[in-house]
């Protein structure tokens, strides 16, 4: 059985490896959520070439699995759905459709917040 501290560690890594990095460019998009042209390629890399060319959803699945096996959490389900939505929008994003890019920014920030919240909660729940 994985000790709670290991769970917290896994969640912290997931928050770092996925949450932090998917939101890299999103943090620098103006409040209007209109993505400036020079940032579009960076945003696409954050979401679809996150780690050694793998998309964020793939990196997430790898990191989330050992956590869910021990302690399922609705936030992981929510993040999976959000990343799925991103994957479905990839063609529009690569076509620089403004609405798709804006939505991607919102999703990236939400994914980061959800994963950070999970990491914090699991750390606090340590004995």
């Amino acid at each position, binding site marked *: 059985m994985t000790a709670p501290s290991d769970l917290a560690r896994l969640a912290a890594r997931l928050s770092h490896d996925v949450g932090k990095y998917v939101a890299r460019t999103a943090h620098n998009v103006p409040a209007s959520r209109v993505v400036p042209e020079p940032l579009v390629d960076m945003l696409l890399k954050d979401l679809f070439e996150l780690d050694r060319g793998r998309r964020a959803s793939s990196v997430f699945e790898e990191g989330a699995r050992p956590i869910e096996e021990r302690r399922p959490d609705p936030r992981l389900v929510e993040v999976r759905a959000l990343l799925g939505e991103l994957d479905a929008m990839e063609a529009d994003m690569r076509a620089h459709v403004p609405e798709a890019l804006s939505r991607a920014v919102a999703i990236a920030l939400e994914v980061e917040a959800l994963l950070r919240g999970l990491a914090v909660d699991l*750390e606090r729940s340590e004995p």
Partner: protein
Amino acid sequence: MTGRRPKVLVVDDGDRYVELAHALLRDYDYATRCDLPGPCWTCERRPGCQLTHAHDAPEVDEALRRHRDLDVVLLDVAFDIPEARLLPSAEPDLEKRRRLQGLAILNHLRRAEKELPVVLMTSLAELELEDAASGLTADEYVTLAGTDAFDARALGLLIERVLSRRVLPSPGGAYVWGSTPAMARLRRDATTLARTSLPVLILGETGTGKSALAEQVIHVASGRPGPFLAVDLSAIPPQLAAAELFGTARGAFSGAVERTGLFAEADRGTLLLDEIGNLPPDVQRMLLLTLQTGRITRLGESASRAVDVKLLAATNADLEGAVRDGRFRPDLYARLNPSARLVIPPLRERIGDLAELLAGFVSATFHSGPDRELLASYLRTTALSGLPSASLGIGRAVETTEGVKFVISRPSLRALESHAWPGNVRELSMLAANATVFALADAVRAAEEGRAVVGEAVRTIPVPARLVRELLSASWSAERVAEPGRLPGFAPTLAAGASLREVVRDMEKQLLEHLFRLHGGDFVAMARALMTGDPEANARRVRLRFNQLGLRVRGR
């Protein structure tokens, strides 16, 4: 600071940070390995170019060799690179080595460039769960980017802060800005106002560091060649204020001697009038005249003379209220440039800066004076080499190769962050000094009695959580005084013309000096004479206050 753009070295296994920096941090130049002229983002070879930053430790070495003019390093922590490119380590877990390679690179870099500022692109929260991260220390040259790592605007401000710290005068006097938005604004406004001819009004609760801001930031940033002088107007008897500020001619009044005056002494420099609200009405009029004309007239003379002084005024009082009540001239208040006043937030409103402030105070405590001598004697006793210097580590055991490192636990840090800090950063600086001096004194005793472990391990000195708790709870309130009247032989003297604050402080000093002599320096006995409760704990409080009043006694 020179006019050139600061040069940044980005150390990252991938392109994340360098891309971000190139796209959004355009005020900086970048160290490149190709050495083509111009910043990276204007380089025509940029598309697909991989030569924009260091990807591992050997490339850091190469960058340092090629670029002797680096100003700051942005360093990632996790490096997903082949094992052969990782720095050698005894850690068997390859994954862990990769996740913390940045810290190994930091240590590696420190050996070559001891004082090059490094911004680690991580947060304390990310590091906390990594066992091996305990080697990270919060010294004055390492800054954690925290949540600013990917926010280019915040990161830019952070880099500015790091750079500003680098040009400040001395390690013992560096102004710690922290990272709160209010302090970032304060820094920008202070350095802007410093370069103008306008007076500067500095507001803030007691102990927030108004004088430090004036001397270490505004005077330095002003670039004025003259001296920095400060005067606490609450400590000057009202009848002497004019003479102190403007000078006197011999015979100006009964007993008057030739006196230059602070305005003339501060010519071409900076003069801080602390507690400006205490200025007597007639001197307010004289100050107003000086601000209007740029000239002063010594008491007893009719001819005026020109002075070139950057005037700073500070107070923790309600100056606007004093104007409304008629105690402060409205025309003088208007001349002090109140619309651009600088307000230093209390420590409780910038508690996120506490760890950084604490590290700065620990370093400053042992920068000079008797505390440095005590540290030097410790190094001698324990046969450690190197100069006496101190830094602060937070968390588990940390290693250092020079000076000593004081370590406080995370629960202690949390306790400090939960404290209200009515005395603000001054209170924190006193706590930092007392906690580390007490811990050092215990370490010295252990070494002298042969109880200390020999070798490099004694470079790490833990600050006990109990000591931190005691210092936090130390206060000097009347209800703790036990049986007043049992103080034989105590006959205090009062200085004529002193303010109430001075009288109280002076009485306190005389009382403690009297008890110190009476009890032969036995703090436990002094505590018994003064307070009820645990004499050992009270002895620490008495000793703390003893130190706070400048009555320092080292040793046992």
